[in-house]
């Protein structure tokens, strides 16, 4: 699990030679999290840890931890597209969709 993307998903910064144009030298899945314009933000104090959001997530990127050190609702930001289904189905209405950093800063 990682925090919100602030940089484009690329590892070019760590290599010394660059190709120009479309080429893949490593075969990995496209990180669809870059499509996101809004992301879910959980008001954890109102959350009942029922897991409805996890069950309805179309990309299965939500983990709900009821107890322990990792107690909370966690999203895989590499693949969460920000579709908002979790926010819609939440029975406690404690998930808000907030704009990604920069998108609406005027």
């Amino acid at each position, binding site marked *: 699990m990682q925090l919100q993307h602030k940089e*484009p*998903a690329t590892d070019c910064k760590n290599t010394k030679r660059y*190709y*120009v*144009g*479309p*080429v*893949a030298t490593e075969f990995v899945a*496209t990180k669809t999290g870059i*499509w996101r314009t809004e992301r879910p933000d959980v008001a954890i104090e109102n959350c009942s840890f029922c897991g409805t959001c996890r069950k309805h997530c179309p990309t299965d990127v939500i983990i709900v931890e009821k107890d322990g050190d990792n107690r909370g609702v966690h999203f895989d930001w590499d693949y969460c597209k920000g579709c908002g289904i979790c926010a819609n189905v939440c029975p406690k209405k404690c998930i808000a969709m907030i704009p990604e950093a920069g998108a609406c800063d005027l």
Partner: protein
Amino acid sequence: MSSRILTDGNGAASLGLKLARIRVVSAYPITPQSPISEKLADYVVDGTLDAKYIRVESEHSAMSCAIGAQLTGVRAGTATSSVGLALMHEVLGVAAGCRIPIVMPVVNRSLVSPWSLWCDHQDSMAERDGGWMQLYAESAQEVLDLILIAYRTSEDARIQLPTMVCLDGFFLSHMSDAIFLPDQDTVDSFLPPYVSHNFHLDPDDPMFINDLTPTSEFTEMRYQQAVAFDKAPEVLAEVMADFQKTFGREYSLTEAYRCDDAEAVIVTLGSMSGTGKYTVDLLREQGKRVGILKITSFRPFPAEQIKSALANVGTVGVIDRSAGFGAQVGPVATEVRATLRGKPVQGFIAGLAGRDISPAVFKKAFTRLLDNETTEHVEWLDLKEDALTLREVRS
């Protein structure tokens, strides 16, 4: 050492590709390009060109094969015209976006409809923003020379862009002309064996080329192409200077002919430039201060050179050899206008589908400029009066 030979534009183009030691030919014949396809086949058969000749079934395949071949690390040659270039359109973008420095002669011919076999620039103008450099030749000698210059520039690590070397159909492609043919050793010293600076096809080093690129990177890859185009004028000028040192012939992105004290200058492209210069000489004898500015490199567009060449010129005209439908003026005039911000630039259209741009046509344009009768709209210079009543039918 060079020899003096008699050939035509297509002959010069074939010799240029041969001197560049292309290793694969994938060409589909189309009038007026066909003699290039045939000549290259002859060279392969008689053993003077060590290349594999792929008999493709269309121009779409011709460019696709050239791209695949060049990605293996050799120069690949092809050439086309008109609707053949249009059929290549999709794959031209692949060569440009994948930064494969293919050099391709384009023998200019009008696009349908009406069907025509003859010269105008609409075919290459339709590709002007697609990521290929475009050089326009005035003579058979320029065809050969610009091909060699194009290879050096295209393959430069700072550039890596493909180039079309455009030659006017029939006016250049089929007109006999005496040219200096450089010897192979001198060309080899000017143009060393091909080295790819970008990705390649190699089973020992597999990579996935031309894959689907997400929104998060597409803009950046387009910007990479734009950066290469920004550097292209400087690199072209560098290569042209080295060409002059090696072969003795001088080239530049634009050629100003008697522009220094000119009151009126016409901007030209391709073979019409020769007629333009000839007309300038005749009009100068009559005391008229006129000049020609020939654009050799249309992509990259030589904005700085045009600005400085025309800084002190009163009135400027541009003859477009293609109609820019829906625009105020033709494509070349549009860009010259944008470059010269504020100065009156008259757009002309002439010479479509092989109609000769004669000295009389140039004189008509110069007269209009010298009389200061410029408008915002394009003037069709050689239009016949019966344009709207060509086909009479029974009512």
